[in-house]
């Protein structure tokens, strides 16, 4: 922010105010506080436990579907609530399209990790993630959808 501006010269406020021109993100700051209160009311340990349980359901469920290769830690190893996987014979974009048609949103591609994918011998993977608002039923719907993909594309 400035104090005085003329055609010849600009005077700024001292730091940090001089770097904070314009409208402050007031609504975001208020919402951020509310979000933290919400998470603390639910309880961070409870969220972590829920996420880990869903991750285990996701990874162990994916691991037993024929043709599915989960990348990253295997089932039984603690991980955050997401898993990237390869579907043998079906490209991740086709897998994503198939799941999308069932109302299931996943991310597909190299997930900003091209060298890792190359190292794993993959060009793209499908990634499903869970959080505190995800349910067992939703994980099961994803698993059911993934189990159908290879047959749909004739590669089962």
């Amino acid at each position: 922010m400035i104090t005085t501006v003329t055609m010849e010269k600009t005077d700024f406020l001292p730091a940090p105010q001089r770097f904070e021109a314009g409208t402050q993100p007031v609504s975001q700051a208020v919402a951020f506080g509310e979000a933290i209160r919400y998470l603390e009311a639910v309880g961070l340990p409870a969220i972590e436990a829920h996420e880990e349980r869903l991750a285990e359901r996701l990874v162990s469920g994916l691991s037993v579907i024929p043709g599915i290769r989960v990348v990253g830690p295997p089932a039984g190893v603690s991980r955050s609530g997401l898993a990237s996987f390869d579907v043998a014979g079906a490209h991740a974009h086709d897998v994503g399209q198939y799941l999308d048609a069932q109302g299931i949103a996943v991310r597909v591609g190299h997930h900003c990790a091209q060298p890792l994918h190359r190292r794993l011998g993959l060009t793209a993977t499908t990634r499903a993630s869970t959080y505190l608002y995800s349910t067992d039923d939703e994980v099961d719907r994803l698993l059911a959808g993934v189990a159908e993909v290879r047959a749909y594309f004739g590669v089962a």
Partner: protein
Amino acid sequence: MPDALAGLYQQVILDHAKARTGDGPLDGADAEHYERNPTCGDEITVRVALDPDTGTITTLAWQGDGCSISMASASVLAELAPGLTLAELAERTDAFRAMMRSKGAGEPDEDLLGDAVAFQGVSKFVMRVKCAMLSWVAAEACSTQLAARA
């Protein structure tokens, strides 16, 4: 099968994605072009060989890695191209591009495009249009090389 997919994955497309025409190297190609879609990582190298007497395409071959739409499209193109002059290929490429830009509204000419009309449904899925265009764009670049040499 989810109904929403029926328009996208026509049986013709699924068949071509599995049993691919023109998938492989081509010795003695007259032109070669590599094309890549950076957003999804799909890549393809298209090679074209011409009959030196007539100037028509004898073979269009390709090697690539990508989704079923891009691979099937390359297969359909490899089936369509032999026997065509570069001008005739350009005419079909223009028709294919117009269809892919139609957002499902176009009425493709089956006499001109053959199996490629199956991609009409893909034009409704804007994210997948580039998949379908990949090999055609690479073939177009081959034609440009050949025309510059002629």
